[in-house]
């Protein structure tokens, strides 16, 4: 079992094809797979459908894949920070499937857990419910949402051992575990690959069974909204 690769290009080799569905971890620019996104930009894979909560900003994160017109469709809950996204969407170049944030997370989790569909009350009575099966339990309506089964997952963790057992840091966990779970193949990038036995097995957030390929690298970790308080307020 050799999961560790030397670079994003090596780790993605043989996994990419035009028209594929990719699930990506991250929330805003927090915990995004920066290196693997760059790798897909470099590979030039086209007509991608990307399931990701957000679409990055113009020059960072998934925004880079939008800039190169490699994305055909986004499945997201919020895309407000990306002007190029708006331009492509409003001109009809880019398809967009809005998913409520929790529905998107659960669709990924469900896909990874072998559940093709589930019922949720999120979105009942809204445009999200249009065309979806409705079922009633105890007088409450629920709509059918489908699990996401991605061709590839790209995720980012803080540390992992060489078997892929991974630990995330603070709110950079976000969509990474469910995104990792829903791919046929999952490639993970981490800040540090540590030796087997150095992570406490009780503290693993994502077991290595979900991780097929692993790379280590430097991350920019850009901050989207830097907010601070003055020291004298303390």
């Amino acid at each position: 079992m050799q999961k560790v690769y030397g670079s994003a290009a090596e780790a993605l080799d043989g996994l990419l094809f035009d028209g594929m569905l990719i699930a990506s971890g991250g929330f805003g620019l927090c915990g995004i797979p920066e290196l693997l996104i760059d790798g897909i930009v470099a590979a030039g894979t086209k007509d991608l459908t990307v399931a990701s909560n957000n679409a990055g900003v113009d020059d960072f994160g998934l925004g880079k894949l939008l800039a190169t017109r490699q994305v055909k469709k986004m499945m997201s809950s919020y895309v407000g920070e990306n002007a190029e996204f708006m331009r492509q969407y409003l001109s009809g170049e880019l398809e967009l499937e809005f998913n409520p944030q929790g529905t998107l997370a659960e669709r990924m989790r469900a896909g990874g857990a072998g559940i093709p569909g589930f019922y949720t009350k999120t979105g009942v009575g809204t445009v999200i419910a249009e065309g979806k099966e409705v079922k009633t339990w105890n007088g409450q309506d629920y709509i059918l949402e489908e699990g996401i089964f991605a061709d590839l997952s790209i995720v980012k963790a803080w540390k992992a051992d060489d078997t892929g057992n991974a630990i995330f840091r603070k709110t950079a966990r976000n969509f990474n575990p469910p995104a990792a779970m829903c791919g046929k193949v999952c490639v993970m990038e981490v800040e540090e690959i540590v030796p087997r036995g150095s992570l406490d097995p009780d503290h693993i957030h994502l077991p290595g069974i979900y991780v097929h390929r692993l790379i280590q690298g430097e991350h920019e970790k850009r901050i989207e909204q830097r907010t601070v308080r003055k020291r004298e307020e303390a």
Partner: protein
Amino acid sequence: MPWDRNQMAARAAEELEDGMYVNLGIGIPTLVANYVGDKDITLQSENGMLGMGPFPFEGEEDPDLINAGKQTITELNRTSYFDSAMSFGMIRGGKIAAAILGAMEVAENGDLANWMIPGKLVKGMGGAMDLVAGVGKVVVVMDHQNKAGESKVLKACTLPLTGAGVVDRIITNLGVLDVVEGGLKIVQLADGVTEDELRAATEATIVG
């Protein structure tokens, strides 16, 4: 004088009780955290955190620690982190006692619209649809009228809904209204606002 933003936030904070787990939206709802006083309130940030602390001191920002508005924040000694599926599991599962949210429009049947204006910039609903469908109590905090002076408290929403029949209480600059059978019930008038003024500024049916 109608309530200002801080007075609306202070009034919204009165909705919170000791021990509650609460999600606060962006805008005036964020200010509610400044008015919880001694109450033991745990704030949820739906990107995967319970026990949200204040903004960091300058130089202590951590790119791995942000709130749902993508702002840098801090943790507390009670903080826990989890993934987005679990985060919305606790929202959808009714574990979060209350959400305090802003709105573009609220209707007398509890319908809420706060995520899109057709033909204008479409940003997305984020976690708002999950929150209003799942949490115990939905409190809307907003100005009673828009900039053109038109009521935002309507008989029926004109904008695409975030949730149908989900709002429990509306706190505006003019007062507090509850969604009840047949329309809205006045709970409280803002300081110096008369019932006639509130009624005149409200398109929705006021009962009782």
